[in-house]
């Protein structure tokens, strides 16, 4: 195993690992420079953003090739560079980055999809006056996301995680003058924050138990043997070891960021942001960060499992993922906003990824993540092209017949839609989803997830068909006329469509390259891979499910284009089902009644406390001081001053009395004099008598 030690000038690792830090830093630096530019310098801003991400892509490809080369030679590549950030007491806080197969795949995907979306945005945001600000935030996001990918320290990952959340907030609320956009940004931030609290608890617990937050550090990292055994031995209640509990806490952070069941409410509202934002952040990358995080700390969740069995933590992950998948798919059936359907679809697919991680391991979940990134980005960019072409219309009931008006968009969108549904053989989505279904089928604990996921696949096909029928088939129901989008927007669509098909190749059972790459096994092209028992049946079964969904959708919606005000076909036949689905199964209202109502009540209590109780105490103290001041003044004026004045008056009148002695009449003086002499002489004579 090639490893590197502390951050010293001589590298025992490869050169690429040494400069791996450039990958996230280049876009961040570009973001900083763009922030200092003035608004009209659009070309420079776009150029800086695209240029820096190109550098990142280049370096990511070099790293990927390096890791693949290592894998081909049979050695396992996990290179890392760690350095100390600061010390406190006898412990240190270390940061670092790591390059291994998981990271290298993710790096390439994020930078490639990101670059395509950057190029697309140049065309999409061309009429927006805040063009420069958009690219500044986009670059910052790209840098932070790449930082999450290569981070070797849970702390560094958390820091980049938070920056990702910040940029998501900034970009959702990009058009902040719209109250709905500002509210959506706030909702996203607060909801993911709830998950982040548990994440932080997990981090602190991990640090306290293992003394380090590094993943890999010559055997003493928190994901390596010693620490894991230590964590496994401690019990945390509910049948969980400390490792599992920490893993679940970290999973809670992923629940928030990836929109799993209780904390999914922000994702549909996040569609208020511009479409490239939805494509990049809320389809391909940021929401995938949660899945990536679970994949990263997978050893924590897996330790203690018997061979072929599973742990409590992974069971929780599986059930959360499976239920989310079905839940979101149900709601997507009854939505009318083109982006909202895709948002719920994303939530559903994220559920699939989580279930895949829980059921089949890192490779299964990550494969679906990679394929989903491409075709979901494709779908969102295609939706953006449609919105752009329909003059900012987003309601699918006012679209229709676009397959002739926007042919290129239609073809690429159709490819993406089929990949998402899992149309057999040709599309990558089929292989990745089947991988998950296969793992679910072989799960010992329960067959529940399997049936849920199959039902989800049916629903996925159904609602995507509905959407495509509404948008591209039938006749035009909007105002004005639709037009195709410029090349700068359609070119990325084509590239993504290509990958939506081609990526399937690396994950088929005949040549499971992806799985082998991630699990450090060898892979070879062997058609006998198809001959696994039950596999053929499964592939046939899932294909039937997909066809059934497609057929049902076509039968209900087909080439018909009902008027925008007319009720939906499903609504007509099953209104009792339609209404709750359209109202998103009342989750938001539930939160409003419980959490938000409680918070409002609590805020009122705090306000009352502040104004009445603390304010009252302050007022009482102030009144006491006033009283004291008045008392002092009374003492001072009435007693001290008054006493003094009175004394002076008495002295004055006494002086007046005394001054009568000085009458000014000489004869009186003489009289007194004589009388005194008489008295004196008399006394003297009397006393001297013999």
């Amino acid at each position, binding site marked *: 195993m090639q490893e590197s030690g502390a951050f010293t000038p001589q590298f025992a690792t490869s050169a690429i690992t040494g400069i791996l830090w450039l990958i996230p830093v280049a876009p961040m630096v570009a973001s900083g420079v763009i922030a200092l530019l003035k608004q009209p310098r659009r070309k420079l801003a776009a150029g800086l953003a695209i240029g820096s991400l190109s550098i990142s892509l280049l370096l990511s490809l070099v790293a990927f090739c390096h890791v693949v080369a290592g894998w081909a030679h049979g050695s396992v590549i996990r290179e890392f560079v760690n350095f100390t950030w600061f010390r406190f007491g006898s412990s240190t806080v270390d940061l670092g980055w790591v390059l291994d197969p998981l990271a290298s795949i993710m790096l390439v995907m994020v930078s490639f999809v990101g670059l395509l979306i950057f190029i697309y945005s140049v065309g999409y945001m061309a009429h927006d006056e805040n063009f420069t600000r958009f690219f500044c935030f986009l670059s910052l996001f790209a840098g932070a996301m790449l930082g999450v990918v290569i981070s070797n320290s849970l702390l560094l990952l958390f820091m980049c995680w938070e920056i990702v959340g910040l940029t998501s907030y900034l970009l959702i609320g990009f058009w902040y003058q719209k109250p709905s956009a500002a509210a959506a940004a706030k909702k996203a931030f607060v909801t993911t924050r709830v998950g982040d609290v548990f994440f932080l608890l997990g981090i602190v617990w991990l640090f306290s138990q293992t003394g380090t937050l590094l993943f890999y550090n010559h055997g003493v990292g928190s994901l390596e043997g010693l620490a894991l055994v230590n964590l496994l031995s401690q019990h945390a209640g509910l049948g969980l070891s400390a490792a599992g509990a920490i893993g679940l806490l970290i999973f809670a952070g992923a629940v928030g960021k990836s929109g799993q069941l209780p904390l999914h409410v922000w994702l549909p509202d996040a569609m208020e942001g511009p479409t490239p934002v939805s494509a990049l952040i809320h389809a391909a990358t940021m929401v995938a960060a949660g899945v990536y995080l679970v994949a990263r700390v997978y050893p924590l969740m897996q330790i203690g499992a018997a061979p072929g069995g599973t742990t409590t933590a992974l069971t929780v992950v599986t059930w959360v993922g499976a239920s989310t998948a079905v839940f979101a798919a149900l709601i997507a059936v009854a939505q009318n906003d083109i982006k909202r359907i895709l948002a719920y679809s994303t939530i559903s697919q994220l559920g699939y990824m989580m279930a895949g991680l829980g059921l089949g391991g890192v490779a299964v979940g990550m494969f679906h993540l990679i394929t989903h990134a491409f075709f979901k980005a494709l779908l969102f960019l295609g939706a953006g092209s449609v919105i752009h072409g329909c003059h900012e219309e987003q309601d699918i009931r006012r679209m229709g017949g676009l397959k002739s008006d926007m042919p290129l968009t239609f073809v690429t969108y159709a490819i993406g839609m089929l990949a998402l549904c899992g149309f057999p053989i040709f599309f990558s989505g089929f292989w990745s989803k089947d991988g998950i279904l296969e793992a679910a089928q072989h799960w010992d604990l329960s067959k529940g997830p399997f049936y849920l996921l199959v039902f989800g696949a049916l629903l996925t096909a159904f609602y995507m068909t509905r959407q495509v029928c509404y948008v591209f088939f039938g006749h035009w129901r909007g105002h004005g006329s639709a037009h195709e989008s410029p090349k700068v927007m359609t070119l990325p669509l084509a590239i993504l469509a290509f990958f939506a098909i081609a990526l399937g190749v690396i994950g088929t059972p005949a040549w499971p390259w992806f799985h082998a790459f991630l699990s450090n096994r060898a892979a070879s092209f062997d058609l006998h891979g198809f001959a696994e028992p039950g596999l053929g049946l499964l592939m046939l079964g899932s294909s039937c499910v997909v066809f059934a969904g497609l057929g049902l959708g076509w039968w209900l919606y087909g080439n018909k284009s009902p008027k925008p005000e007319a009720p939906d076909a499903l609504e007509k036949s099953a209104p009792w089902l339609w209404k709750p689905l359209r109202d998103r199964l009342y989750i938001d209202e539930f939160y409003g009644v419980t959490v938000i109502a409680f918070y409002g009540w609590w805020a009122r209590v705090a306000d009352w406390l502040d104004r009445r109780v603390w304010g009252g105490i302050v007022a009482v103290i102030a009144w006491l001081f006033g009283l004291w001041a008045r008392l002092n003044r009374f003492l001072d004026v009435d007693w001290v001053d008054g006493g003094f004045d009175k004394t002076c008056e008495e002295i004055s009148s006494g002086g007046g009395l005394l001054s009568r002695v000085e009458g000014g*009449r000489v004869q009186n003086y003489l009289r007194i004099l*004589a009388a005194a002499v008489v008295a004196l002489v008399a006394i003297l004579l009397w006393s001297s008598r013999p």
Partner: protein
Amino acid sequence: MTGVTMGINSPLAGYLLVAALLFAIGLAGALVRRNAILVLIGIELMLNAANLNLIAFWRYGPHPEALTGMMFAIFSIAVAAAEAAVGLGLVIAIHRHTDTTDLDKMNRMKG
């Protein structure tokens, strides 16, 4: 009062009594009369009474050849004359200013 019953057999006593009486009369004049000049007259009478006392004691004293009493009396006369001059000058000056010699009216030194 034994001397009175025995008769005043000492000539000195007689002179002394006369002097005392004259002194008292002079004092009464100074204290009772209104006019400032009469106050001065009273003062002169008092001084004269004192002179009489001095001369009487000189005459009947132990050592008349020392001339003490006589000297004292002579100087007293001289000083009294000077004092009378100045005092009367003052009275005249006051009269010029206030047009009165009434002592009752002279209370500008009132405090």
